[in-house]
């Protein structure tokens, strides 16, 4: 089992590198999808079918949104010069993180011995032992998500709602009620927001 997981992780890392380094945006997005699907398979191997399902459907939606929304606008990135400072900062930070993780690697607990089993009176044990009796839900994850830790789900609902509101705010065509004067065009001759609000008067009541 850990061997399979290792293989999958190596696959995911390669896909991630491809997603980040590929010149073509479409293949970058598809490689990202590969990472997501690999993750979903990892979840299945780690006995988390519910999370695997959520991950796979989210990955599908993300792929569709990115491909339909972003990549269809402009299929290719131009020849990019890498951002020097960012590159160095990235290399330094990544190096730091890797050094740190090598440093602490010896202390990571054994894979397959869940942390809740190592400590007495952990919450996870209670969820498993009494989840059905206390909440009536056979699926412990649903019991945790919506009953024991329902506040997390409220936060989740609010976050999704906030994201929806944010998307609606950001794609509105006329953010201001005034008549705009300047009509400049952006670089590459892309049209910049042409008919900005011909609402007759600037002052609403």
């Amino acid at each position, binding site marked *: *089992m*850990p061997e399979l*997981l*290792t293989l999958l992780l190596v696959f995911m*890392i390669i896909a991630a590198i491809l*997603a*980040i380094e590929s010149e073509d*945006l479409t293949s*970058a997005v598809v490689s*990202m999808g590969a990472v997501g699907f690999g993750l979903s398979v990892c*979840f299945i191997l*780690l*006995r988390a*079918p*519910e*999370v695997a399902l959520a*991950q796979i459907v*989210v990955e599908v939606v993300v792929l569709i949104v*990115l491909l339909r*929304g*972003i990549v269809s*606008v402009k299929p290719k*990135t*131009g020849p*990019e010069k890498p*951002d020097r400072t*960012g590159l160095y900062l*990235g290399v330094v930070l990544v190096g730091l993180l*890797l050094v740190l*993780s090598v440093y602490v*690697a*010896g202390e*990571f607990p054994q*894979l397959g011995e*869940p*942390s809740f089993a190592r400590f007495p009176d952990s*919450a*996870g*044990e209670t969820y*498993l*032992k*009494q989840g*059905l*009796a206390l909440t009536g839900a056979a699926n*412990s*994850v649903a019991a*945790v998500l919506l009953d024991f*830790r329902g506040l*997390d*789900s409220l936060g*989740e609902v609010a*976050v*999704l709602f906030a*994201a929806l509101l*944010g998307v609606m705010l*950001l794609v509105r065509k006329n953010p201001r009620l005034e008549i705009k004067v300047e009509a400049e065009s*952006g*670089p*590459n001759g*892309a049209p910049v927001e042409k008919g900005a609000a011909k609402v007759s008067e600037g002052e609403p009541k």
Partner: protein
Amino acid sequence: MIIYFLILLLFAVGLYGLLSQRNLVKLIISMSILECAADLLLIAAGWRANGSAPVIAAGQDAGQFALSSVDPLPQAMVLVSIAIGLALLLLLTAIALRLYHEYGTYDIGEIRRLRG
């Protein structure tokens, strides 16, 4: 052990992408890779070797189930974090699209007017 290290490596790849790339879409992709790594670490923390999924079957003894199942708590947390990741991605996509319409490019180097 090697698994945890590889997860951190995946995280490092995402971090590298986030800091070195200048394309808005690549930044969004890096963000989502970072989230993948964090989620996987959480799920791995709750895995029990040869464990079962945390769904009790009819007639199964609860005590027996608690000894053989994986931890449901990280799974619940990862579900929430997946939802949050989706929300963040939708918002970032909306901003990136609008930026494309303003500047005609996804390259942050070309559109950067503000400098912190």
